[in-house]
């Protein structure tokens, strides 16, 4: 396995000091830091190849198009899809909105059911609420047990409602739960539904094979997997993307335009209106190279090791109440907890004074936090540069909370 201490050296920001302490970055679930290789790739694009893609017949235009399409091919190979099925978007949220509006408005009608879950990030719930409001469909939500796992019996009951679309996260951003996505997809298909998986928290840590999952749509963001902000991916089954209406319209996504109508470009351009984020795509390809050099299996092993270590270290603190399953094998990427007697925001501020960056709040999962009866929680989240020493620094800084608050 790789040494995260060596990996850390590739990330310039991780040598920054915060409040005179070396930064301990435990907020990778919100966004990951970027290695020098990714920063260099983006810079090289702008300093050497920048031009608009799929347009002018000049050398730079050709080069920009080439690096953009190479990035698409790299993403396709990374998750096991076809290049025509890879749509570049801004982020996971935009990818989900694309499907909700483009597929949803054309295919949902009064009384139809969409199934989501109680542990979804707002990005995989609110767009479906909006589309339901416009079409007369309704959203049913699968419950979460005290163990932080989806209630499978409830899932089956919801599938008995014959939903048209079933959506769920691959890995929960708040609980860290890895959902059994392949099994859930199989059941949803049997019930006649399409399946969209939010992979934002999975792609950075797990080896994702779209074919093995069997879903119809898979969405993720570049910035959580060491890539730049502003680039994300929607993978969709070609047969579905072909029949769907475009989401955004304008330049770049058309075939022919007349004053009163237009026809659409082939996939995937049909879904990429306007000038795309080419530098972002190039940066994302570089991030994939970086992860593949480490090896996704090793990335997962390291993630397991850190999650297990953090669970054990935090459960030793009497004030800490861990959220989600204690079985590290069923988790990835993060550990969330309550510090009893002290508000999460106060904990965050005290940790920050020691240079420890964590997330406090509801992590864009308000329905889940309401269900858990927790106003706001604390989340420590990890990536390939996270060391056990970082977790130790968190535990050390938590002792300071006790000093300040006497609890």
């Amino acid at each position, binding site marked *: 396995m790789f040494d995260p201490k060596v990996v850390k050296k590739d990330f310039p920001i991780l040598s920054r000091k915060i409040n005179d302490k070396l930064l301990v970055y435990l907020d990778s679930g919100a966004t990951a830091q970027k290695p020098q290789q990714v920063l260099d790739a983006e810079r090289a694009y702008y300093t050497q190849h920048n031009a608009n893609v799929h347009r002018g017949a000049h050398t730079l235009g050709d080069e920009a198009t080439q690096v953009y399409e190479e990035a698409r091919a790299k993403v396709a190979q990374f998750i096991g899809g076809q290049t025509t099925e890879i749509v570049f978007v801004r982020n996971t949220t935009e990818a989900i909105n694309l499907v909700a509006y483009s597929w949803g408005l054309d295919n949902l009608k009064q009384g139809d059911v969409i199934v989501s879950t109680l542990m979804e990030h707002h990005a995989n719930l609110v767009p479906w609420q909006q589309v339901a409001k416009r079409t007369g469909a309704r959203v049913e939500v699968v419950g979460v047990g005290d163990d932080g796992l989806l209630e499978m019996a409830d899932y089956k009951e919801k599938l008995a409602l014959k939903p048209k679309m079933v959506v769920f996260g691959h890995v929960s951003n708040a609980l860290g739960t890895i959902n059994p996505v392949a099994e859930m997809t199989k059941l949803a298909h049997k019930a006649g539904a399409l399946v969209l998986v939010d992979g934002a928290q999975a792609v950075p840590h797990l080896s994702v094979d779209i074919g093995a999952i069997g879903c119809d749509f898979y969405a993720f963001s570049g910035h959580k997997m060491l890539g730049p902000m502003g680039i994300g991916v929607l993978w969709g089954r070609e047969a579905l993307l072909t029949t769907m209406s475009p989401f955004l319209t304008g330049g770049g996504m058309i075939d022919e335009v007349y004053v009163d109508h237009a026809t659409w470009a082939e996939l995937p351009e049909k879904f990429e209106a306007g000038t795309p984020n080419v530098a972002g795509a190039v940066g994302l390809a570089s991030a994939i190279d970086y992860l593949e050099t480490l090896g996704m299996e090793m990335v997962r092993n390291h993630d397991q090791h850190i999650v297990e270590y953090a669970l054990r270290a935090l459960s030793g603190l009497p004030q800490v109440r861990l959220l989600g399953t204690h079985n590290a094998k069923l988790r990835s990427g993060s550990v969330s907890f309550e510090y009893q007697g*002290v*508000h*999460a*925001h*106060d904990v*965050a*501020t*005290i940790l*920050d*004074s020691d240079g420890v960056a964590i997330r*406090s*709040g*509801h992590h864009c999962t*308000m329905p889940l*936090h309401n269900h858990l009866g927790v*106003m*706001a929680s604390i989340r420590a989240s990890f990536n390939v540069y996270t060391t056990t020493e970082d977790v130790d620094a968190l535990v050390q800084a938590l002792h300071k909370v006790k000093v*300040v*608050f006497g609890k």
Partner: protein
Amino acid sequence: MDLYREDVMDHYEHPRNQGELSGEQVVSDQEKNASCGDSVQFFLDIHDGIIVKAKWRGVGCAIMTASASKLSEYLQGKRMSELKKMSEEALAKEGISFEVNPGRSKCLMLSVKAVKRLVA
């Protein structure tokens, strides 16, 4: 650390003027921070344009609690017309008198917003 200095922690641990007020001269308003579930409600008992009593109730972090407590002390005896002239920032500076990082300003401003609406 500076933010959780002695007087702030004292107001957090022993909040002043907690409770409710009722009566014809009492106005009240609530402010919530959905991002963390914090909420605060202020009650002002006003006679001849002067706040004769200010109370509040709420749940939240140390910063929210201490700022509501400090502001409630500041408000006693204040003239409504003068509070009306103050900006939110001025009211925070005068009435709460401790500063927070931008990431925590919502916690501090929750009480200020509730009070500002009452004196508007």
